[in-house]
């Protein structure tokens, strides 16, 4: 069963639709990424789950229970904010300890006492009721009820005392806090920074404090709102692995918002691609990359050559004036389609030996590979290859049938 479920969630700001009908299921312990360009509604979705925004319509279920009525502080979620929002008046230690300090250490026990007292009240009431029903003014019954009440009272006292013995004292709780804070600071690699003031931290350190602060409450879900956006490339890559590692070891569901497709592909179990307040595609990174459902997804995730063509019949697609074999089926005959050819799937071969012929238009060295634009009769194809080709050379493009990915036009 899905752990978190969004059902037809919509949101309007000043009559402007920001989210339209978001349906999403998230399993527990999943690393889910909401991916999309800025303004696509991904942060809004996250804030709705976190409880900072109320949706205009729809339901948000946790374990099948609607949580929209719960205020943010009662939800089993914690958030790492985009700009961290660390408390500037507290040092690193106190920032991380904040979640523990606002919690009543004896909350569960106090609840127990409350239910005990309620039960006791009920029992006494029942006895009184019994006595009231008796119209004979039976002295023996009166005595009996009295005795029963006394035992009930004694029992209650004893039970409450027993529970109170389990209460954690302030001193002890302080000790627990210290233990936990140092555990989580170690987890994010910040041990020894306890007394540092927030203003003296670098971006990466602040981000780690924010993560430790959110994790210390042991949330079931951690919401991350572009937490790596402010970091430099090297640090960002490092943090990506660390986040993934934390997610695996802590066994927490992560919902991660980003506009960086590479980040999404690296970390996620499941990617939700969004655009203009709608979910475009949900799937594993491999699915999303290899089988984009439409032009937007194909363009947003990685680079691609997108060509419009016609699906002649199953396994045969026509574009650029030729018919090509492919592995897609299930379209109408002669249906107009978008075709994706990833640059790294295209090969440059000698003239007359490939599928489409063209001329090498430009060659750019990208480090790992060359980015070569090949000008053909109808369009320019981008090819990623490790083989250098001289500019102006007459070449052919070649690919395997499974490299063609056919999409419906949205």
């Amino acid at each position, binding site marked *: 069963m899905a752990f978190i479920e969004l059902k037809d969630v919509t949101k309007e700001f000043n009559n402007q639709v920001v989210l339209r009908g978001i349906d999403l299921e998230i399993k527990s312990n999943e690393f889910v990424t909401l991916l999309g360009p800025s303004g696509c509604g991904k942060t809004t979705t996250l804030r709705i789950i976190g409880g900072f925004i109320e949706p205009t319509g729809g339901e948000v279920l946790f374990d099948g229970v609607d949580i929209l009525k719960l205020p943010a502080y009662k939800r089993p979620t914690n958030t790492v904010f985009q700009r961290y*929002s660390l408390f500037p008046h507290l040092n690193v230690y106190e920032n991380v300890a904040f979640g523990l300090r606002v919690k009543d250490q004896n909350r569960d026990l106090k609840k127990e006492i409350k239910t005990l007292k309620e039960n006791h009240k009920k029992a006494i009431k029942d006895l009184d009721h019994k006595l009231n029903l008796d119209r004979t003014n039976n002295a023996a019954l009166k005595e009996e009820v009295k005795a029963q009440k006394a035992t009930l009272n004694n029992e209650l006292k004893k039970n409450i005392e027993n529970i109170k013995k389990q209460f954690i004292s302030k001193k002890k709780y302080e000790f627990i806090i210290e233990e936990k804070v140092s555990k989580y600071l170690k987890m994010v690699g910040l041990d020894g920074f306890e*007394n540092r003031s927030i203003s003296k931290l670098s971006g990466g350190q602040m981000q780690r404090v924010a993560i430790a602060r959110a994790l210390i409450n042991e949330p079931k879900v951690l919401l991350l709102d572009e937490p790596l956006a402010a970091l430099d490339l090297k640090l960002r890559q490092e943090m990506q692995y660390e986040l993934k590692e934390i997610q695996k070891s802590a066994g927490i569901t992560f919902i991660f918002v980003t506009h960086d497709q590479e980040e999404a592909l690296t970390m996620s179990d499941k990617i939700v691609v969004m655009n203009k307040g709608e979910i475009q595609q949900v799937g594993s990174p491999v699915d999303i990359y290899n089988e984009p459902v439409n032009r937007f997804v194909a363009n947003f995730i990685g680079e691609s050559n997108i060509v419009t063509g016609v699906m002649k019949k199953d396994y045969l697609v026509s574009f650029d004036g030729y018919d090509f074999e492919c592995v897609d089926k299930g379209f109408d005959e002669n249906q107009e389609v978008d075709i994706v050819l990833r640059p790294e799937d295209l090969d440059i071969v000698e003239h007359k030996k490939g599928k489409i012929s063209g001329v090498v238009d430009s060659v750019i060295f990208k480090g790992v590979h060359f980015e070569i634009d090949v000008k053909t009769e109808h369009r320019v194809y981008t090819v990623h290859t490790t083989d250098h080709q001289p500019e102006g050379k007459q070449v052919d493009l070649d690919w395997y049938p499974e490299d063609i990915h056919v999409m419906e036009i949205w």
Partner: protein
Amino acid sequence: MISFPKKQQKPKDHKKLNFEFYLGTPYFLMIIALVLIPIALMVLYAFTTESNNLISIRFTFDHFKEFFRQPTFISSMAESIYLSLISATICLIICYPLAFILSRRKLVTQKILVSLITSNMFINSLLLAYAVRSIFEIIGNYFYGDARHFLGTDLAIITGMVYLYLPFMLLPIYTHMAKLDKNLFESAEDLGANKFQTIVRVVIPMSISSVLTGFMMVFLPASTTLVITRYLGGGQRKMIGDLIDLAFKSSKFGYGAAIALVLAVILLIFVGLIKKFDKYEGVLANEE
């Protein structure tokens, strides 16, 4: 050939410093003319006997002795400080929640309400004190048949002080609150703090310095006020401002200066004590 190391960097720095120094000259002059010389004169007056001849100046502690010998004067000083402390506290109790509530309204609402609340700063304080007095006179006349019933009571004086100095408390607190990062409230809530805990653990520690500023802004002028006692004291409550006023009116400059000096020292002690409470700055100062 012998080459000498060129000292280019240093003279340049020096020049720049000079320029900045000259830029500040008018202000230094102003401070000397308006702050240092008057204080020096006040100290001089306080410690010397009165004479018209500069050469025949004699130093003396007589003015201070005279002041401390009169128990009524000391009690009126204690009273001034006591009343203004209470007024400042009441102002704080009113303004702190008010500033918090204000800072969470829409921007337009904030602007309108703040300018309304601070509008009595635009009105002459004599008028304000007179207005408060009239109201007390009406109430006294109506309920007790005596227009002067309330005049001179703690109630009247504190009401007047609170009314006059409320904006001085509100403005610093409100300005600080409006600048507080709203995201911090969100992150506190996210970490499990309810509204009350957010206020206690985030809002108050972060705004404590503005509270202290506001407190001083009310406490200091209130303790030396002349207007309030003149109109609401009913002629019975002599506060320290009146004493200084009286001394100068009867040309006892040395005596007046001595009282003012004693008051200034006491207020300075209070300011120092208040500053000690500034935890937020303390945290920053203790960092590694």
